[in-house]
């Protein structure tokens, strides 16, 4: 059965209530008549033999010689891979990175390459735990490399392992992981979950230092990325491309392997989350009722553990390898093929139900800043052309927004929330006054380098991710959130969707148009 494309549904009186994610719970809301709901395309069929497809891609790359011919004994080979923030939710074993890296290593073993190092390209994200590395790479790769110390995680604060490659013509400094930049061949294994990933961003961001990243991770770049999923309109993309070209010109040889996955996001027992509500059968409805009732009685910590143990049945849909730009053009087309939905016109109000997971709280707590980032950073920007909401419109997000932070993973977020946001919520003000002291705070550097903490400056990036939305919108309302936390971020709390619409009417009038983004599974709106 061919998967159906995305759908924009006009709500009428016979439309059943819509499922909204609400953190670690779900609710069913009735949307007003005349609203639109954007449903994601169904997952594309998986490749029948992913291993063979990967092998084919490695032997027939785009604009490069086949991989075995690039490998020779005595060379320095570095294999870099995307970190734990992809894919979301984490996929069932075997992970795509495991399949690709095992093939690459088999070729390297055949060629007799001695000097191989694996680097997790985390940029300023947190280090991965052993369990997470084993999941991503598989036991065989982990046991062959970790005991010898050949499996490393990029340390952006290690002055001895950073190499300054130069400055682009726009004054952007390029500073990368030294081992990766001085290798004879750098193989990058990427998972392209959303259109923003991949391409030159893999190396230019994933292996960079703070000095490099601040040139595009700042409010100005983010406001001018409309959206950052749409490469031609994204200043983030242009900056990374300039840096990527400088990296290529300075002699770093990159063999990029990009993969796309289908949006088969939930295991079969949670299939109802993937299906359209009017197509729910008896089993789906029973599962929904049982799950919702059970979750109401479950303490938040247990519910969080349950949800974070979900493994998605994502399957490989395409794999391409070779020169960065050629590969990425193909990958982007594949991502749009899976996720693209055509939408006519903008709307006054955009509603979204936020799930329990964002790229930055895998196996962790979703604190209020990450809620804002997921809603206003990612979901708001899932468009090409024009934003889904009109300028001055309203976004309504559904999430409990608990005032809770993981002290091990997000220590700098606590200080950011208490100290910075209580002073101002303007991204430009924040970057001028506070960013430097957080980025250089020795304690955060210590936790980033030796613990499992995000870098001290990371909460700022989360806030800058919302810059375009904050600049564009008239108001942001959070339904069901902790009122103090919501107000601290400058948003308006509401206890129900109806109340939220009432609050919104101050901004958009009494009869606004409303669109609901029914995601996850992921989608990209092509707004005409």
């Amino acid at each position, binding site marked *: 059965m061919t998967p159906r494309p995305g759908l924009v549904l006009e709500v009428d009186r016979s439309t059943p209530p819509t499922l909204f994610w609400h953190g670690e719970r779900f609710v069913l809301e009735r949307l007003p008549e005349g609203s639109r709901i954007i449903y994601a395309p169904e997952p594309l069929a998986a490749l029948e033999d992913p291993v063979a497809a990967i092998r084919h891609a490695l032997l027939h790359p785009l604009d490069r010689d086949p991989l075995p011919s690039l490998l020779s004994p005595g060379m320095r080979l570095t294999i870099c891979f995307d970190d734990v923030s992809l894919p979301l939710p984490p996929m069932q074993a075997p992970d795509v990175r495991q399949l690709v890296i095992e093939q690459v290593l088999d070729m390297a073993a055949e060629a007799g390459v001695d000097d191989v190092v694996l680097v997790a390209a985390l940029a300023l994200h947190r280090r991965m735990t052993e369990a997470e590395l084993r999941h991503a790479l598989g036991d065989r790769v982990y046991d062959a490399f970790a005991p010898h110390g050949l499996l490393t995680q990029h340390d952006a604060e290690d002055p001895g392992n950073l190499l300054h490659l130069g400055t682009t013509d726009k004054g952007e400094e390029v500073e990368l992981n030294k081992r990766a930049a001085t290798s004879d061949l750098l193989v990058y294994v990427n998972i392209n979950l959303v259109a923003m990933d991949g391409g030159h961003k893999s190396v230019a961001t994933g292996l960079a230092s703070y000095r490099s990243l601040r040139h595009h991770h700042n409010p100005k770049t983010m406001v001018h990325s409309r959206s950052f999923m749409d490469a031609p309109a994204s200043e983030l993309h242009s900056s990374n491309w300039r840096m990527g070209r400088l990296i290529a010109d300075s002699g770093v040889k990159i063999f990029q392997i990009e993969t796309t996955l289908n949006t088969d996001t939930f295991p079969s027992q949670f299939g109802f989350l993937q299906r359209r509500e009017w197509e729910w059968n008896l089993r789906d409805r029973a599962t929904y009722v049982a799950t919702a009732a059970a979750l109401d009685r479950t303490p938040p910590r247990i519910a969080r553990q349950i949800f974070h143990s979900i493994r998605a049945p994502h399957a490989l849909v395409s794999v391409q390898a070779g020169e960065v730009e050629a590969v990425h053009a193909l990958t982007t087309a594949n991502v749009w093929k899976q996720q693209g939905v055509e939408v006519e016109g903008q709307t006054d109000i955009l509603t979204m139900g936020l799930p329990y997971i964002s790229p930055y709280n895998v196996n962790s707590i979703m604190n209020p800043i990450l809620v804002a980032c997921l809603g206003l950073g990612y979901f708001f920007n899932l468009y090409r052309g024009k934003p889904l909401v009109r300028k001055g419109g309203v976004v309504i997000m559904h999430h409990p927004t608990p005032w809770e*932070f993981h*002290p091990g993973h997000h*220590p700098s977020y*606590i*200080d950011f929330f*208490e*100290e910075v946001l209580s002073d101002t919520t303007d991204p430009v003000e924040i970057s001028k006054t506070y960013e430097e002291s957080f980025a250089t*705070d*020795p*304690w955060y550097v*210590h936790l980033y380098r030796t613990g499992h903490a995000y870098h001290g400056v990371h909460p700022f990036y989360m806030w800058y991710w919302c810059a375009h939305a904050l600049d564009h919108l008239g108001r942001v309302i959070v339904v069901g959130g902790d009122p103090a936390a919501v107000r601290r971020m400058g948003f308006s709390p509401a206890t129900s969707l109806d109340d939220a619409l009432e609050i919104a009417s101050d901004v958009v009038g009494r009869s606004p148009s409303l669109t609901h983004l029914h995601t996850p599974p992921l989608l990209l709106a092509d707004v005409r």
Partner: protein
Amino acid sequence: MKALVFERNLPRFAASRLASTFGSGRGAAIGPLRLAETDPPALPGPGWTRVIPRLSGICGSDLATLDGRSSRYFEHIVSFPFVPGHEVVGELESGERVVLEPVLGCVARGIDPPCPACGRGMLGDCERIAFGHLAPGLQTGYCADTGGGWSHAGLVAHESQLHAVPDACSDEDAVMVEPVACATHAVCDANLEDTGTVAVLGAGTLGLSLVAALRALSSSGRIATPGALLVGARYPHQRRLATDLGATAALAPDQLTRAVRRRSGSLSVADPRPGRATGPLSGGADVVFDCVGSAGSIAQCLEMVRPRGRVVLVGMPGRVQVDLAPLWQREIRLAGAYAYGTETLRAGERVRTFDLAFEVVAAHGLGRLVSATYPIDRFEEAVQHAGAAGRRGAVKVAFDLRRANERRTGRASRPTTGGTP
């Protein structure tokens, strides 16, 4: 005339101690404090005058005494039965308003020559508080011979204990002078440095007075100016007041360590305890004032102060169990700050603490911290309110003796601002 009298009565003592486990101040109804008819106290000698109280504050040490929680250390420097109340603004027979400096030093006790401390004007350090021609008693309000502020009968005070209240100063402002003087003494004694980080844990009357004193005295250049003044306050109204009075940031107590870490740029040496965001610091604040006095608060102060820094206990502690290993390893100075006397300021200037306190009260209008007043007939409610002040959104609770005075003497008292809620 009526007065609240505290008698030595062991069963009632025990009963009030038990009752106080349900909340500070609950023991007032069954404790050793009772409303009695007493005569005004006799004048002990020349130089003494009678003072009729107008407003008398309820202090944390009073509450501890009423709860039976105060240390047994005080047994020998207190004489029963006594009338409590040492935060007093009253009037003399001439009608002039005065504030009482309750410490009973050598001069008040008629000891000549005075002890070395009293000779230097450091009344709080007097070495003769159980001697002289008065019964033992560290302050008026703990002495059987002087009477105390919680009475209509009044008290007697030596002329050295009285400070004239300027006209511009309301009764509420004046009743705050004594607690502000305690805070002022703690601040002046703390060897602050310019641009140092100062943390204050606890924002009841003492904590807020500390913030006010720090700001007022540093802006007039008499003490060093702290770089950051961070206050740990449990209740939202306390945090608001702290920020109003000039704190750099007022946060919940469990967030205070984290904020101090950021300001002082230090690292953390151990995992945070459950519920806290940060563990003990490797560096920390230069001076930490503890205005709570519990085992937990002292432990937290030791966590947040830098090596060779200073922790000042301003609030009266009892018997607490504290792990002193951090104190030893990091060479921390743990100091007590009690009462007042004469301060030596930056330029070598010597000023009496009460004079500085009057300035601080006037600069910030601290009379607004008097949240509620009660007549002494309703002393159970008053003490309960004072015991639950933080939870009930109050700061200072005081006894208002003016109305009853008016009725009795038939003469109108000075109009003042504020009044019963």
